[in-house]
């Protein structure tokens, strides 16, 4: 068998070696300059970002080295007295963010469905613009509204919840008796609940615009298929739009959570700081990492500053995890895929 195979004859070209052609284009001098400038820009951005990160980490390490494991377990904040930790502030931050997300997600989910499925076509562009504008409203405006308007209006709601659901530990309020008409109302002000409500209004537009983006990409072929099988509008939404947009819903929720964790000014304007773990969300007094920094940076000693940086870094780590989780969920969802019709 083997002798039937013949080697292809090389054409006799007089001994010129067959060099492979170089397929890599040679960019001119101008392009080389352009590419290195762009690379330099990227590098500069990287350096700035790395500088912020490493500097914060380096200074924070000073405080962490001195405090050790107590940094996570201590509730008090007194760096110069040697007794400080983030147990109280980080729990406060997470509670405020959770209240915000619990309120914001149903609101933004329904608003996103309304805009992408129910709103008249002519109104849709305007509504999208309004939602995006809401995301750009300065936080000090929300803070003013929360501190001057909502604070006093929401007390009756807080009292009602604590009267009827006080047996659930997080809704308990110390210092008042149930259904006492003469009870002081100040125990209900400046609470985690009110701060969470204000932050909820701030994060709802962000979550809403991400969810709407996901819903509006649900493929038209599958929508029409559902209608053709006799689905009502809600049936179509349940069987096509919501499963398709699940990634966007989770991603929007997580991004909202990340934003809620880092919110500063609106929270500072509402809460009254208190450095104990305070799980009763309706009661006066709570704390958050960013409000701690905003309130304490001015009178802090150099060591106090690095302690604040350590607290800030813990918050940064938390938001980073939440944001990357959100990004990976959104990227893995089916959004952007088209159905074959």
């Amino acid at each position: 068998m083997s002798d039937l195979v013949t080697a292809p004859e090389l054409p006799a070209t007089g001994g010129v070696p067959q060099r492979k052609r170089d397929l890599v284009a040679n960019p001119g001098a101008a392009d080389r300059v352009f590419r290195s400038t762009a690379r330099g820009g990227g590098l500069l951005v990287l350096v700035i970002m790395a500088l912020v990160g490493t500097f914060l980490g380096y200074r924070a390490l000073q405080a962490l080295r001195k405090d050790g494991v107590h940094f996570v377990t201590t509730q008090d904040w007194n760096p110069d007295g040697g007794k400080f930790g983030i147990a109280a502030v980080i729990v406060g931050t997470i509670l405020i963010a959770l209240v915000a997300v619990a309120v914001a997600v149903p609101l933004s989910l329904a608003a996103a469905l309304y805009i992408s499925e129910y709103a008249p076509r002519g109104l849709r562009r305007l509504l999208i613009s309004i939602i995006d504008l809401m995301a750009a409203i300065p936080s000090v405006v929300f803070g003013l509204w929360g501190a001057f308007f909502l604070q006093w209006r929401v007390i009756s709601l807080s009292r009602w919840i604590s009267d009827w659901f006080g047996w659930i530990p997080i809704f308990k309020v110390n210092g008042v008796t149930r259904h006492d008409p003469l009870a002081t109302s100040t125990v209900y002000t400046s609470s985690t609940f009110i701060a969470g409500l204000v932050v909820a209004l701030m994060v709802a537009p962000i979550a809403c615009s991400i969810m709407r983006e996901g819903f509006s990409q649900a493929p038209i072929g599958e929508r029409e298929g559902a209608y053709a099988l006799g689905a009502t509008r809600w049936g179509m939404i349940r069987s096509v739009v919501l499963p398709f947009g699940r990634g966007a819903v989770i991603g929007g929720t997580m991004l909202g959570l990340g934003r809620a964790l880092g919110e500063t000014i609106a929270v500072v304007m509402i809460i009254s700081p208190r450095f104990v773990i305070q799980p009763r969300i309706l009661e006066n007094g709570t704390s958050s990492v960013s409000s701690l920094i905003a309130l304490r940076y001015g009178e802090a000693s150099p060591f106090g500053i690095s302690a604040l940086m350590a607290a800030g870094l813990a918050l940064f780590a938390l938001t980073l995890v939440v944001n990357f989780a959100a990004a990976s969920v959104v990227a893995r969802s089916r959004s952007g895929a088209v159905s074959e019709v």
Partner: protein
Amino acid sequence: MVESPTATTEAIGPAGPPTTVPVRPAGPTPQLPRRIGGIRRTDILALLGALAGGLTTTGVLWTQLGPFTGLLGYVVVSWVLFVVYYALLTGFDEAGPIVRSRIASLVVHSIGVVLLSAVAFVIGYTVWHGFGAMIHLNFFTQDLRSTGPLDPLTKGGVLHAMVGTLVEVGIALAVAVPLAFLAAVFLHEIPGRFSRFVRTVVEAMTALPDILAGLFIYATLILIFGLDLSGLAAACALAVTILPIIIRATDVVFRLVPGSLKEASYALGASQWRTVLHVLLPTARSGLATAVILGAARAIGETSPVLLTAGATGYLNFDPTQGPMMSLPLLAYTQVQSPQPAEVARGFGAAAALLLLVILLFTIARAIGGRTAGDLSRRQQRRRAAQSMRDANRYQRSHATDAGPANVPSHQKEADR
């Protein structure tokens, strides 16, 4: 998903029944199109009836029967009863799935309206309360250097804060925007492991809580390098905050530029930097404007980085390198902490001015860049059509004369203009 067509033809077989043409029945038939959508009278009546029923039942509960008080409770209970009555009324003449669909539609509509009206209310509340200070002209022409806490609203204003906001945001944008565009061009044009790494870091930095940017500038520029609390420091903090945001927005916009346009440019022999300059950036122009304006809106509204770095003052200060500089959000924040009603009103005025500024910027951003790259408004389309008509005429003329400078390659000319 696509079924192979052979399977179905085999199932029917080659010898099916003969095909016949349906015969149209003689005589004119009344052609009444069936209504398949729209709103019937019963729907509206059910809705109005349920609403009236909900409101009145709750009214009876609140005023006559139960120990209930409070407007919020009234609204919530009326709404719940409204939904229940509506479900009952539609249940009389529709099937289960349709009733469920109606209820879902009702719930979605009402919650959507609640969110939109809540935020509209926040805006309205601030502007309404800020109005008291804003109607005095001195609010825009004076600063607070000689205004005490007890002075009325006819004295003192926020000129220094407006100047401070403009200076700080201007510097922050001047630093951040060119750098962000360069970095975004790098991420888009030179893909590879390094640019992936840079993109990851940039995305991580968008999660940086804004107060940490302020704390970073405070600890480096102010505590270590001895810079004053000043507009420059605040501008640096703002630049650090908005840099990753603008990079990310720009990166997304670049991804929307059609690849065929760039390939066409390369096929015509253009180099990479010419392609970037004459194809990528002009195509993405509206998106770039949006990214910049959204960054500016974010920078204007940021309070916490400025709080740590700018210092607070009542004096008008044009020099960002020396002395503290006020800005609008910081002024609003500090003024409303005072117990004096005039100061609180001034704080609301500053917040309202800030809000109106952000809305103005946002409207401009929408007007410029509400569309994606390549998606043109009708006016732009007309302009493009006129432009290419002129070009076609010009080419014809130059071919007709066929002499002199007309021999320059046409795309080169295009690029030079």
